[in-house]
């Protein structure tokens, strides 16, 4: 992984005020964060912990009360820097009267992309997010999951170097969730940095390299997932192909050596993996393929 810092916040603070300018909520309290190139960084925290506020300050949508933000070394308001960013908000705020194709063409135009290139990218992204059949229907009639896919596609139209995803899997079915997670991992492998928030801890655990846990606007924990979740006081061995007798003998042997009872269980697959396996058996598995321009 590269050591180039993509996002850096120093003592970032945000206080919301009412009409009379009186402070109402201190949403973020002195946050220090760094995200490096190629890293998948997860922002975790309960509702109202300041995750979305932080993301919106990074994007220049909210103004910090104090502190500093550097995105690719620039201030969030720098227009040129925005060419390198893709953003998927918590709710896909799309124009209801546009079709997915028109939506993507519109956002491509905001990057000043030539029409032919924009059309090519739109086609590829629509195929990638599985909306080929609905490409010419107005987004207003879409389900939440379908709208989410359009939102995801618009975030990728510029082949961003930094992808900011606010609850990216919200509203998606398990297959869609898996695809998003696969996509995030593939993009990260190609050097794209990802900053994401999610309430679904399993999703974060699956794809993030590092996480920060926020609570009441404060940073409570930060680090690599493997390090944060490691329990050094216990050891687990995974042995395949043991019979009942062999397993019982092994357990007795360890118990006699450590002088304490030893817990024994069978590893279980996650519900998501089981679901995808069942779908695959029915021949309904959809193979996720990255859009060519993003590879």
């Amino acid at each position, binding site marked *: 992984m590269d050591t180039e810092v993509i996002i850096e916040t120093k003592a970032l603070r945000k206080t919301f005020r009412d009409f009379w300018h009186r402070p109402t909520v201190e949403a973020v309290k002195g946050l220090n964060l760094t995200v490096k190139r190629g890293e998948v960084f997860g922002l975790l925290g309960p509702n109202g912990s300041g995750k979305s506020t932080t993301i919106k300050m990074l994007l220049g949508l909210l103004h910090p009360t104090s502190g500093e933000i550097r995105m690719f070394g620039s201030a969030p308001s720098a227009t040129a820097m925005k060419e390198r960013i893709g953003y998927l908000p918590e709710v896909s705020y799309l124009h209801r009267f546009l079709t997915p194709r028109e939506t993507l063409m519109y956002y491509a135009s905001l*990057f000043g992309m030539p029409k032919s290139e924009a059309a090519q990218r739109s086609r590829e992204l629509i195929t990638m997010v599985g909306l080929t059949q609905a490409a010419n229907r107005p987004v207003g009639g879409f389900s939440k999951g379908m709208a989410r896919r359009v939102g995801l596609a618009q975030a990728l139209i510029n082949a961003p170097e930094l992808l900011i995803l606010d609850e990216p899997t919200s509203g998606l079915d398990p297959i869609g969730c898996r695809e998003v997670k696969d996509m995030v991992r593939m993009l990260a492998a190609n050097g794209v940095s990802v900053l994401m928030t999610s309430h679904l801890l399993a999703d974060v655990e699956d794809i993030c390299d590092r996480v920060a846990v926020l609570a009441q606007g404060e940073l409570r924990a930060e680090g690599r997932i493997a390090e944060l979740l490691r329990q050094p006081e216990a050891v687990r061995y995974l042995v395949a192909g043991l019979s009942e007798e062999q397993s019982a003998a092994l357990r007795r042997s360890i118990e006699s050596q450590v002088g304490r009872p030893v817990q024994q269980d069978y590893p279980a697959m996650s519900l998501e993996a089981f679901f995808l396996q069942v779908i695959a058996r029915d021949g309904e598995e959809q193979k996720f393929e990255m859009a060519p321009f993003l590879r």
Partner: protein
Amino acid sequence: MSYLRQIWGVMLLSLRAAIRAKMVIFLILAQVLCALVLPRVIKGDGTAAGELEILLTYALGLSFGIQALATLWSSCSLFASEISSFRIQLAVVKPVHFPIFWLGRWLALLLLNGVLLLFVYTIVYFQLRWVEQNQGWEPGIVPSALHVSPPILPTAKAEARQIYSMMQSKGELPEGLSEAEVLATLEEQAAERYDIINPGNEVVLNFQLARAVRKGENITLRFRFDTEYSTRAHVKGLCRLELQGQPTLFAEHQLESVTQNEIRLEFAADPFVAGATAGNSLRDFVVILKHTGADDKASALLLRFRQDVVLMIPGKTFESNLLRCALVQGSVLALLAAFGLTLSAVFSFPVAAFAATVVLALIMIGGGVLPLVSKEDEKKWENRMGVAVLRAMQSTTRHISEAKPLRSVVRGELIAQRNILISVFWNMGVLPLALAILACAALRRRELANV
């Protein structure tokens, strides 16, 4: 190139929004009603000229009013609705400068307005020609556009300064007023000032035509007298038109009319063209109006030189004038769109729409109210703020309707190129630019996300 693509993208989005939200369809229906149904409903005075006035003034005027309000209110919603629905978040995180968002939307409104205006004008024009043919109107009822030349006079400002100096030398300056206040009052009065022609007296006015007169053309003198108490009085006199520099080359008409009637006198250009010496530009003329008086008791005639007397020669076709009128109205719509857009960048839709409507009403009534406010009333503290606001509005928007386009088309006066340029320069250039700067500053300051 990249900026153009961005502008086009924003423009296309706004056009799609207008068309797919069916706003344009409702507007088209309203315009068709105005252009086709309204002239059939309103009763005229039975004359062809009356019918023409209904078609042009009422149909085009009302459809313009509807379009103006639709433009103002829809532009008030453009940024405001995107901000309140948080859709703007997805756009402003892209590498687009705020002026591009503003410009794209403004151009979309401009294009829509242009198409709608042309649509209405086309309907009214063909209706007019159809009525003209069906009712067998005489030639000349549908007026061609004449070049209008006012008399050569010092500007209102220069005249005010001149009168001020005269009053100063005589020690007649009013007490308690500053020089600027006296000059402002004199300047206001100069535009409306009546000059008195007593029986037996005459006035001499110099004119410069827009171009040289040609053989076969007519020179039209149009004027209107008034009396001291605006009563109807008999006008008897002599009107002479001379080619400047050649006083022997003239044409005369006997005046026999009443005050407050618009008097139109036609002079054939042929004698002037034929008799002009080499080097005469055939543009400079002298008009002498002599009040011979009906009898000994004849009252003095009043004439506002700056408003009520003009010399006219053939200019352009009716169609050309109608197009000029559309251009001036289009420029006003462009300004309204810019104003609404800027308000929508600052306020929510209801606040923006309310503010826009109030400002529009103040501008419209301000012109009528301000002249009624006396200097004494203006000085009262409770009136100061209101008068200052109205004055500022009048001053900022004085160029909006300088051309008075519909009136010119109906009266057959060519809308001068200068007036069109002034309208376009202010309504589509200077004022929208200032409004755009204001809107972008507001958008930069505002927090555009929900929390």
